[in-house]
């Protein structure tokens, strides 16, 4: 493998890990509520912005990160409680508009609470590039990858080994049946919004040292995360991760070997092709319609 290819793959995996975290947030909320939360990118923004603000106010990095995740989780819970729950029975499009409204609101609030500048977090463990097979990567990239793996493992454990996690899965399959079994759908919704806000915030904190953070980074990341979630098959956890990594690799390889100006176009052309020709998503979970 040429050093060039290794470098492209490393770039793709770094991008992909971030997209995967955002996509997982989409998948968790979609599973519990069949809502596509277009404010998901704002959780990423809140995580990064809050963490930098806390660090600037003198908190040590680990504390600041924890506080930022907590702040984003609160915002996620509030979003569910105040906006999504009152509109539970509205149509898909109406819910989309509500979450878009929420994302505008959150962006506006962020620009007021903080500012419109670009901020950065210090890298967790330095900036010295690490050489691998002729290519290089930053230590922070390892943090991103490591934290993504840990987060995915923790989620797997949560959904397969804990009662609350299993309840969320049950609700995702059938609201009515879950309710009959005594599972509180409302609590499940709260938990899933909180969880996906926390995941988004985690992504925001992890990437702030690499690609910085500002009040408006949520738009693009949310869009890419949605694309990754769809590419993997909506509502599938492994699909979201596969979709995220695939999208990251497509972008990096497209930019490297074809044309960097058109890398987003390749990415979307491939997504369109996958949607039309692979009707079941990468993870094969796209449900068929039953009559």
């Amino acid at each position: 493998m040429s050093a060039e290819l290794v470098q492209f793959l490393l770039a793709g995996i770094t991008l992909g890990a971030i997209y995967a975290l955002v996509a997982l947030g989409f998948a968790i909320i979609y599973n519990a509520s069949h809502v596509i939360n277009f404010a998901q990118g704002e959780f990423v923004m809140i995580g990064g912005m809050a963490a930098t603000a806390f660090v600037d106010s003198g908190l040590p990095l680990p504390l600041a990160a924890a506080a930022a995740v907590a702040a984003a989780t609160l915002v996620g819970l509030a979003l569910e409680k105040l906006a999504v729950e009152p509109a539970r029975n509205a149509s898909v499009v109406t819910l989309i508009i509500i979450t878009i409204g929420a994302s505008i609101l959150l962006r506006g609030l962020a620009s007021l609470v903080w500012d419109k500048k670009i901020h950065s977090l210090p890298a967790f463990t330095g900036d010295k590039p690490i050489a691998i097979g002729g290519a290089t990567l930053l230590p922070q990239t390892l943090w991103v990858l490591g934290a993504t793996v840990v987060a995915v493992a923790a989620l797997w454990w949560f959904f397969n080994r804990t009662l609350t996690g299993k309840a969320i899965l049950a609700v995702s399959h059938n609201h009515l049946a879950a309710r009959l079994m005594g599972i509180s759908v409302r609590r499940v919704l709260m938990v899933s919004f909180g969880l996906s806000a926390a995941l988004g915030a985690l992504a925001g904190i992890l990437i702030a040292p690499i690609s910085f953070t500002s009040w408006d980074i949520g738009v693009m990341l949310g869009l890419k995360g949605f694309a990754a979630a769809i590419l993997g098959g909506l509502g599938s956890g492994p699909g979201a991760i596969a979709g995220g990594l695939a999208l990251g690799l497509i972008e990096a390889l497209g930019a490297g070997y074809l044309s960097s100006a058109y890398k987003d176009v390749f990415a979307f052309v491939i997504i369109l092709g996958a949607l039309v020709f692979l009707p079941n998503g990468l993870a094969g979970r796209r449900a068929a319609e039953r009559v």
Partner: protein
Amino acid sequence: MFFRTLLAMGTLALASLVQAQEPIRIGAFLSVTGPAAFLGDPEQKTLELYVEKINAAGGVLGRKLQLYSYDSAGDAEKARAYVKRLIEQDKVDVLVGGSTTGETMAAVPLVEAAQVPFISLAGAVVIIEPVKKWVFKTPHTDRMACEKIFDDMRARGATKVALISGAGGFDRSMRAECLKVASAHGVQIVADESYGAGDTDMTAQLTKIKNTPGVQAVLNCGFGQGPAIVTKNYRQLGIQAPFYQSHGVASKQYVKLSGDAAEGVRLPAAALLIAETLPASDKQKKVVVDYKREYESRFKSEVSTFGGHAYDGLMLAVDAIKRAGGTDRAKMRDALESTKGYMGTAGVVNMSAKDHMGLDLSAFRMLEVKKGDWALVQ
């Protein structure tokens, strides 16, 4: 009868007093939000700050300034609507604004038709070339930035240049200008890469540049966080060729974001960035130091050259109003066009019927990041 005459005289006096106090209306449309907020935000703050200061000092020609300002959010159509609003509804005397070239160009047909003097804060050459009767601008053009950079590259013996540009208007316009003037300045563009808005990693593009044979220098046309990410990735990949940024990142923020990776990066910028370290003999020192202090003490944040463009725009307008002796639009325009030797944050401005910007390459200083700060390249 006597009383009536007195009354009439009183009314007349009152009327003329009101006339004298009729404010001078300054219209502004800036990208305070949106992707170009980092331009519009300091511009907006600068205008507010200096309108307040000028009014506190008694205004211009005994009249107060009144600022009408709208957020066009980098959207040309919004800019258009607001320019109409400023001209038709707010009846402003002079326009300052258009943070981006797109917003400016959308406004040009309107101001030409309404015949209102307009000072743009955007970069591209198309704004003043060909000359438009009512349109002026304060920042250096992107073409000048390319020329300045290419000259510096050649002086260091680099003639094979790689470009990496963002997808925004500023980025694309500068890239196009650089491609145009490269050969005239003795350099050859051997690689031409781009990245998108909101991209978080540019190592793929830079790897391609790194593996392009013969690259002797690299230039990044862009603004916002993109260039800081490019800078970090550049060092990560260990590319040795001299690295240049554009005047689009001429703020302390860029150095802060990029950290150690910014060491040795060069860019052309106005003297504002190195205000304090300018030699006392430098004629520009006073104006840039004053502006920097005012801005930083008021807003507790680092000054940028973009706010400086707004400062120059407002001051050029005020200067022209003074010389025109009022707000007659045609007279203001003529006064603007005959601006000579005005010392602003961007440099000395000498306008003419052929040049509605009035800056030359000497106004641009080549700076290099040294020990986390800007230093003048001798």
